[in-house]
């Protein structure tokens, strides 16, 4: 097996995640797209670890998985908080931190 298909699939996964972040307004889809991009990087690290026969890449993927877990906990807590306050997960609804138009 050659590594090119693995490179292609992780690039495609990263691009799909990026498209999801750009094009959707559902906060949950944004969250899952970030996870997909992180997983694409994981896959690439594992591929390079296998290419060089070196286990440092595997260790990096393990640490990345821990970071993914931390990110999931935080993002889901934020989604719960926002959904509770506005009854919606539309990213356009959440503009509390935006400056009022007239003061710009």
């Amino acid at each position, binding site marked *: 097996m050659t590594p090119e298909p693995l490179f292609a699939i992780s690039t495609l996964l*990263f691009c799909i995640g990026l498209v999801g972040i750009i094009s959707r307004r559902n906060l949950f889809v944004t969250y899952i797209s970030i996870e997909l991009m992180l997983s694409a990087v994981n896959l690439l690290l594992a591929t390079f670890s296998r290419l060089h026969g070196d*286990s440092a890449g595997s260790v990096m*993927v393990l640490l990345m998985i821990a970071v993914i877990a931390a990110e999931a906990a935080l993002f889901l807590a934020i989604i719960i908080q926002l959904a509770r306050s506005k009854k919606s997960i539309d990213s356009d609804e959440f503009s509390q931190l935006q400056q009022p138009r007239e003061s710009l």
Partner: protein
Amino acid sequence: MLENSIFALLALFLMIGAMMVIWSRETILSAFGFLVAMLAIAGLFALLDNSFLFLAQIMVTAGAVVVLSLMVVTSINLKEENLPKEPYKFRWIVVSSILVAPFGLLIYRSLISLHKSFAEVSSGYGGLEMVGDRLFTDWVLPFEIVSVLLLAAMLAAIVIARKEIRDDS
């Protein structure tokens, strides 16, 4: 030959899952697509002789993160009318795909310029013993930092997600 067909199957599942995430209107379908994609990535780890990462991916990402996401989706329980209105969703997806395509091509071209064939690996490669050995010798400091990060994330998640207690007195 068998390896290639397994890879093709896993890649198909991965793409179906990822497309489900960004195409579907229902949030729960996105979460299921996420589950399919994570399982396919676990399979790809196994195909890369990385048995430990396969286990970690199944247990942490497919087990904990996806289940937590599904629980949040079902507990928020948004009605159809509360989902974001996205009348131009497909147009947005097509336009942003066109925008992202050159970037992806750049990544792919730079990756295949690093092309090597797979190295012959030693027998213990990717197993628990080898990864653990490496983790607790060369990578101890990042490991400790990650444990502090997980603690901070746990505290922050509790603080953010708890209900505000109003003091009416």
